[in-house]
Structures are given as C-alpha cells and as structure tokens.
C-alpha cells in the first residue's frame, strides 16, 4: 500500500510534505465510509454471485445457504456433461441464436430509418410530437406489452383476428400467441415496437450534429432529397451506427439493441410454443427455481456468460480495428 501511485498523484494542493497514509485516511474517513458502503453492496450483490458460479462445479444443496457454495463437494464437469447431453440443449442454442440474430438484422436498421424520417419533417410541432410518442413505449413494462399483444392477437378477443374475420380475409383465427412458428416474429416485432423509438435519440443527435453547409453544398450540386439523405445524412451518422452496432453484437445474447430476450421468453413463452420460445437463460431460470437444481442451472448460466464475455471482447476488438478506439 505504501507505493500506491494514486496517493502521490492526488496529493492535496499546498501540502508541504506528504502526511502519512493513516493521517490522510483519517482526514477523509467520512468520504471513505461513503465509498465503503457502496463497495460492501457490490461485495454482497455482485461479487458473491460472481464467486457463486463455482456452484456449477459442485454438488450444491440450496439448504446449505451461501456458505454451502464454498463448502460443498466438487463434482468437476458433471453438470456440463449433463447439459450437453440434454436433449433440449440443441433446441435452446438454436432458439437463443436465432432470436438474437433476427433482432440484430431486423431491429438494428429501424431506429436509423425512423431518425431519418423524423429529420425530414420540417414542421417543428409535428417533429416534436413524433419524437415524444416514439420514446413512450420504452417506459412501459414488458408485462403491459404482453397484455397489449394479448388484446390484439388472442384467438378469442384479439381485435386483429376479429377484424380479419369480419372482413372475410381469414376464417379461422390466427394463433400468433401459441403457434411455435410465429414466436420468433412475435419476439422481434414486439421488441421493435417497444424500443426502436427510444434508440432514435442517439441517431437524431448525430444528425443534428451534421454541418448544414453540407446540405446546401449538395443541393447546389443538384442533389435531390433522397440523394442528400444518402450522401450527407447517412455518412454523418456513421460514428454512432458503428458504435451501436458493436454494442448490439456485444450484448447479442440478451437481444442486442432492443434487448429483452429473457422477458419475452418468460412472458410470451407458454407450454404450446415452448419449442421455439425457450432460450438458454430461461431454461436455466426454470430448472433452477422450479426444479430446485441450482448447481445445474448455474452451469447453464455460466455457459451463457462465457459466450457473452467472448462476444463483448470480440466486438471490442473489432471496434478497435475499425475506429481506433475501443469502448473500454
């Protein structure tokens, strides 16, 4: 501790000679206590669960509490073998990757397009109105979104089904909420509905930062509206597009930009569409909490975390290559 560089660097201005560490510490004791409270919180709610992952290699029983994590017997890779041999495992990996990739492909361009569309509106009032309502769904809970999905798509009272039947377009109600084959589309669609408007904030700010002179110059050169969007607006958004894309790849398993893989799988998933709706994270959660197999569930969580860390590091590496600066 006596060669802590931070101490020398942050020597109080005007101090003639460096007081001893103990003296300094006593002088800033209250401030230190504030920070210690925060660190104690992290120790309990972040670092203990982090060390808790060793459960995945142990014969852990929930009745032994937190201490049991450290005292129970080692069983090596038993649970990982069990997971790989679980007949659901390929299905879980397929669903997790498919939903994540679909969101990356379909959800990523929407906020960019929406931001361009909003910018092209010249009347300030309409512009502000569109912005205001497009952020709103971000603040609504997933439970309400699922309730809305139910009100619209349910076979019994869903108004879309009712309207289509009344119009004679279909004769049998569409089973969007229960049909396994429509789950991925439902997941991507509801996630875009909820979060796309929110992410326009970043892109709108980027567009606002573009030099208006560029537009005038392009116009003088005879570029119409669409060509100005293509040659001025889009290149002007390059920076945030790259950053957001990298962030979404890094957080892909959670759903990327629009997130919410876990919430959707938990809330929109049901016993009928299980085959397409269950993902690694929800399987771990159910196995752990419903069946009480905590060690096995932790092993599943750990597999997901390792893939996630790998994705973060890869995307950060790409970021360094592309823009010269990483995110961390």
């Amino acid at each position: 501790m006596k060669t802590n560089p931070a101490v020398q660097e942050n020597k109080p201005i005007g101090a003639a000679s460096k007081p001893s560490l103990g003296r300094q510490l006593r002088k800033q004791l209250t401030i230190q206590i504030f920070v210690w409270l925060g660190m104690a919180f992290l120790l309990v709610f972040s670092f203990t669960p982090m060390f808790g992952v060793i459960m995945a290699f142990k014969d852990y029983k929930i009745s032994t509490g937190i201490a049991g994590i450290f005292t129970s017997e080692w069983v090596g890779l038993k649970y990982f073998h069990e997971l790989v041999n679980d007949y659901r495992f390929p299905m879980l990996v397929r669903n997790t990757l498919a939903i994540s990739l679909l969101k990356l492909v379909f959800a990523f361009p929407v906020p960019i397009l929406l931001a361009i569309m909003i910018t092209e509106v010249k009347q300030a009032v309409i512009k502000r109105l569109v912005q205001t309502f497009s952020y709103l769904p971000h603040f609504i809970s997933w439970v309400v979104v699922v309730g809305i999905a139910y009100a619209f798509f349910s076979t019994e009272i869903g108004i879309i089904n009712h309207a289509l039947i009344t119009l004679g377009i279909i004769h049998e109600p569409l089973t969007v909420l229960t049909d396994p084959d429509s789950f991925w589309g439902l997941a991507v669609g509801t996630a875009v509905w909820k979060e796309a408007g929110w992410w326009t904030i970043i892109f709108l700010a980027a567009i606002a930062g573009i030099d208006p002179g560029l537009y005038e110059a392009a116009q003088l050169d005879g570029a119409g509206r669409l060509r100005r969007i293509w040659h001025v607006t889009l290149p002007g958004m390059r920076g945030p597009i790259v950053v957001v894309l990298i962030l979404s790849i890094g957080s892909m398993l959670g759903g990327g930009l629009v997130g919410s893989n876990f919430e959707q799988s938990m809330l929109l998933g049901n016993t009928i569409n299980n085959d397409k709706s269950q993902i690694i994270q929800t399987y771990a959660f159910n196995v752990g909490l419903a069946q009480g197999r905590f060690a096995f569930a932790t092993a599943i969580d750990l597999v997901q975390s390792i893939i996630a860390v790998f994705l973060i590091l890869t995307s950060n590496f790409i970021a360094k290559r592309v823009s010269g600066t990483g995110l961390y």
Partner: protein
Amino acid sequence: MARKTREDYTVDTINYILLALVALITLYPFYYVLIASFNLGQDTARGGLYLLPRAFTLNNYIYFFNDKHWVNAFFITVARTVVGTLLGVIFTCLVAYGLSKPYLLFRRFYFLLIVIAMNISGGLIAFYVVLRGLGLLNTFAVYVVPTMLSLFFLLIAVSFFREIPEEIGESARMDGAGEMTIFFRMILPISLPLLATMGLFLGSNQWNAWLDSAYFVQGQGLRTLAYRMIEVINQTMINTDAIGAAYAGSMQVTSFSAQATAMVISVFPIICVYPFIQKYFVQGMMLGSVKG
C-alpha cells in the same frame, strides 16, 4: 430557400404517410386498452370494439378498487416505487459523491471493482441463492435493497459531482459541518437535473419490475400490479374458456376488462410524469451512450 421540387413533394408525402402509420401502430394499442377499460367486459368479449366505448361503464374501475388483491397490489407497487427510488437515488449519489473526490485514497481500486461488477454477472441463479441466504426472499426489502446501487447512474453521478467546485463545501467545512451535512444540505439541492433523471429511470424500473414479484416472493400479500397482470394473462392466454366466463358476474367484468383496467392504471402515472422529464432523459441517454 429553394423552391420545392416534385421529388420534395413525393418524399414529403410518403414520409408523412409512413410516420402516420408509425403513430397509429404506436398509439392505437394504448388507446384500445383505454377504451376497453371503459367498456362493459362482456360487451368487449363480443368483439368489434375499435374506436369508442360501446357500452360505457366505470364498472371495471369500481371492481378494481374494490378487489382487495388488486388494491393491495397497487399499494405495494406504489410503496416499492417510492421507497426503492428514494433509496436508490440517495445511496447511489452518496457513493458517487465519495468517489468524485479527487483526493480519495484507493480510487483506482474502487473503480476497478465497479468496472468488473458492471461487465461480469454471476447469473440469476447465483443471485437468487444470495438473496435466499440473506433472508431477503418473501420480504418487502427484496424489492428495494438489491436495487439500491445503480452502477450506470453511479458513473453518471460521479462525473456530475466532479463539475461541482470544491469551494462549495469548503466554507461549511470551516464552520465544522460534517461531510454528511454538506452532502445532504448543499450538494443534493444543487443536483436537481441529475436527481430528476435518476428518479425517472429508477422509478420506472421499480414501477415496471415483475421478475422479483413473480419469483422472489410468495403468497398474495407482497405481489405487485405487474405480477397480478401476468397471472391474469397466463390464465387466459391458453385456457380460452376463462374469457367469456364472468370474472365478477353481476358487474359484467371479464378477466380481460380487469386486465385492461390494470394496464391503464399501470401506464397512467408514467404518461403523466413523462412529458415533464423528457428533456432530462434525453440528456441522460446521451451521457449514457458516451459512457457505453
């Protein structure tokens, strides 16, 4: 300004049509739920309700506020939002205030811990085991204690407090005031924009949270609005027989009309608060995006 070309007119027209469509898709669901909550449940179940309540009624709301489970869930949700937001804002700011001092010893070590905690998680199951070990399961505290420190806002608050000149606390310190007094009496009152942003985000997280109420508590006493809504949705999503059947017979309330009412009640406060804080959260979002 140059004269509008044909292209301008075409682009504008298509753009307005598309935006009107976006507006419809975004806003109509809210509107539909609203009219469904003011329509007789059994009438809604017949279908064909699109634009205006067909059989206007306040029954759904009367039912909601007379059902002790819904009312209890409502007050639990209000309580967790108020307590959880206050605790989260004050605790996060307190820690951030300490971390913002340039002369703080071991700063780098503390920030290292924070960065690790932000990027690596032990997963939900390990988290659950810790909650259980601490005896937090089935208590009100499980809603508000694990959310006391928001790491995202911790970093934002640290950079906010760094901008506050050190002299502000200096004279009070001369007069013998402790750091605690300085923090509560001088620092917090001049940090309103920060507190408003944090309040909105932490508050809406609390108000919307459902996982903790569904899995970390048992019995009816501590359930929140979100949990009760999930319960009703799950009952009716698969078991379609439950829909037509009256939920509370004489009032013609169905499970869907009760659910629509709960949804309106759950969205209403957000819509009320939202316009006032919009300018803050746009700033907050930009700050957050810079930090990654």
